[in-house]
């Protein structure tokens, strides 16, 4: 075709594929998709939801470790890692992998989430060779990590954290308290932010450590969350000794390390969540809407219900495309500074809206679903619990309010708030 763009006569059909994935050719991807589908049919335990409903903490952990090793055997556990460490899957294939795991309602990797994402990206981006050799293979063997960032007085305002690490020869001695440490009860190691220069401006005096959770002085206490689970923990740190070799990056550069490693893992994890919501999650919602109520009528035959389904499915479709785009831009290093915030904000509030609707449309019986399966996300079909759990996405990792500020300031270039005079 000859289009007057100034670039002269490039020609071509203009036809493009509907797929957003772009790295591998379409044939490879189709073959790979078939392979993952086959694997899922053979390996996803058909009854895992029932078995995980009401599972003890130990049963949950054992199931998660087993499932992780099953994925590892297939090469699906850490596809995003570099090839030398056991990954090396092209991004377009990772997209397919997560799409198919979601489509086949595979269990989620909950226990190892921080290990394979946050811990690995920290080690890969900012760790030493020694640190990588020590931990990456261990993670593949099941080493569990927890993130020790937030504190009681440092939630949204993470930079005001108070946990202190004092240099003492070849070691640092840590005192303080961490909160919202997800999965700390099972953790072997901790990604720890602590203040090493109390006199520096807030973000400039923080260092990043790898802390052995079996160190003396580490005390983990469970915190029950809003649905009664104890997945979150407080970690009390009393004179905990960390060898200086467990420092990640330079002293007082912990804030930058944390930012770099947080950004590194956002694309694909968000894509996985979006696919979960768009596959099994939305399917169960449609099922709920098609289930006749006490009067015999199906909710979906109420045009108001069908309308909301159409609206939510549209938004979820947008979300999934957005996540594929984010992954591609991450890969091409063209992502904008607020792109991840857009996805996180939209996902978390869409999840919440969807679950709110599910609760309402499911009516009274939804309230009698007292437990949700472990190893599932917040779209499990136990709608009331899912809805309440959705605040786990709108609050941690930067509340929705914080995300809007980031989008406004970093994404759109709007002026910052004047500094508080207090």
């Amino acid at each position, binding site marked *: 075709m000859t289009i007057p763009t100034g670039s002269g006569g490039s020609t071509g059909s203009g036809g493009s594929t509907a797929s957003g994935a772009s790295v591998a050719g379409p044939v490879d991807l189709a073959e790979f998709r078939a392979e993952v589908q086959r694997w899922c049919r053979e390996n996803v335990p058909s009854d895992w939801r029932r078995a995980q409903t009401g599972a003890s903490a130990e049963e949950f952990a054992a199931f998660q470790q087993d499932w992780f090793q099953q994925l590892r055997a297939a090469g699906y556990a850490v596809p995003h890692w570099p090839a030398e460490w056991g990954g090396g899957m092209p991004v377009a294939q990772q997209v397919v992998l997560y799409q198919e795991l979601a489509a086949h309602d595979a269990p989620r990797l909950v226990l190892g989430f921080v290990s394979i994402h946050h811990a690995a990206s920290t080690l890969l981006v900012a760790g030493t060779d020694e640190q990588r050799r020590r931990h990456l293979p261990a993670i593949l063997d099941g080493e569990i990590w927890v993130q020790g960032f937030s504190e009681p007085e440092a*939630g949204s*305002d993470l930079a005001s954290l108070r946990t202190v690490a004092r240099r003492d020869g070849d070691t640092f001695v840590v005192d303080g308290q961490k909160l919202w440490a997800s999965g700390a009860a099972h953790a072997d190691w901790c990604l720890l932010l602590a203040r090493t220069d109390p006199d520096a401006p807030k973000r400039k005096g923080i260092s990043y450590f790898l802390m052995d959770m079996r160190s003396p002085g580490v005390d983990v206490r469970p915190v029950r969350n*809003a649905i009664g689970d104890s997945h979150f923990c407080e970690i009390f740190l009393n004179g905990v000794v960390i060898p200086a070799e467990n420092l990640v990056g330079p002293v007082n550069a912990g804030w930058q390390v944390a930012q770099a490693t947080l950004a590194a893992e956002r694309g694909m994890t968000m894509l996985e969540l979006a696919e979960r919501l768009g596959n099994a999650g939305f399917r169960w919602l449609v099922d709920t809407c098609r289930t006749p109520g*006490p009067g015999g009528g199906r909710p979906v035959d109420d045009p108001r219900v069908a309308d909301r389904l159409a609206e939510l499915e549209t938004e979820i479709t947008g979300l999934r495309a957005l996540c594929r785009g984010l992954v591609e831009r991450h890969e091409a290093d063209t992502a904008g500074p607020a792109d991840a915030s857009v996805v996180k904000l939209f996902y978390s509030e869409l999840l919440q809206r969807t679950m*709110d609707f599910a*609760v309402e449309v499911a009516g009274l019986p939804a309230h*009698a679903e007292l437990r949700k399966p472990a190893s599932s996300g917040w779209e499990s079909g136990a709608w009331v619990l899912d809805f309440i759990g959705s*605040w786990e996405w709108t609050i941690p990792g930067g509340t929705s309010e914080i995300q809007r500020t980031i989008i406004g300031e970093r994404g759109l270039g709007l002026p910052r708030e004047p500094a508080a005079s207090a």
Partner: protein
Amino acid sequence: MSDVAMSESELAELHRELRVVARDLLRRNAAKAGPDQTYPTVDWSLLVDTGWLGLEIPEEFDGAGATFAEVAVVLHELGRAAASTPYLGTAVLGVGALGLLEAGAARDELLRAVAAGEQRPALALPTGDSDGDVTAFRLAAAPVSEGDQPGAGRMVVSGSADFVPDAAGADRILLLAADESGTPVVVAVRPTDPGVTVSDRPVLDETRHLGTVVVEGTEVDPGAVWRFRGTDPAASAASARRLLDRAALAVACDSLGLAEAMLEATVEYAGTRRQFGRPIGSFQAVKHACADMHVKITVGRELLAAAVRALAAAEDPAGPHDQEISVAVSRAKSYLGAAAVDIAGAAMQLHGGIGYTWEGGVHVYLKRALLGRSLFGAPAAHRARLAARFTAL
């Protein structure tokens, strides 16, 4: 009810006093709860001691002879406290049903026993969205078998109702039933009667105690079948409808109370919690969200007040028509059902991490708001009832 009319301002003053006393009592009662308990319990004995149980019971049966307007004040305060109590099932639904029935020895005796705290009734009625059928049980003549006294007129009742407030623990179950002509009646059974099964129906909202009532061919005496006042079947149908309206409105009172409590807790937290060197309430994102909560509560309060006035005046010959009462109730229930969930959800969001903990207690209110949104009609069901007025003609 006494026949001395109270002026509107006297009534407002009475409600204010009732409210202050109730709030104070609930505060003191909550303080007695253990540190691990995220909600207070207002048990049977407290309901008896406060006289709340007999508020609507006529003075001749040892009650206070008040109206739903005063019951609404108590419901509102119980919602604010997220109190676990059998008040809804017993005093609001049970007593409410008895109050609409023809006088009679058995009914009167039960009313007197409830006022004294000696009997605990519950009302088995449809609890969900179903708008067509107001009765969940069917009454029929018992098959005549050999040896029967001719003309004894024994009846058989069957049916079921789910998510019935405070059913388990009640010693009288009042079944909202249709007789053979389709006229609503109330059939009084005991949980121990043959064919009657009352079981717990646990829900995530731990402050509510709901139950399932299944009745399979239970034989009852004619004396256990109580008719609504007025012999007219239409009047009976209106009374049954009124019971459902009353149930929906009771939950709306609760929703307003808990929404208020959530706003107050959020304002309190936002005024003290500091991040980025400022109280978080000084940020517009938080401040404006609180303002929106306040606006919703203010609007909901007006809708509730209008519905409560209408229902309380229902027995007044110059009062509103049945249709007007139902409209006012559906407005209040649909608006507050949704608003309370939105407000409790916003409270959870604005409390940040603390709001998401079990100990923080916001979840207690959110679960109660969610259950209340569905109980006795979701907002969509009530709006459908309102909307029928626009599609007609």
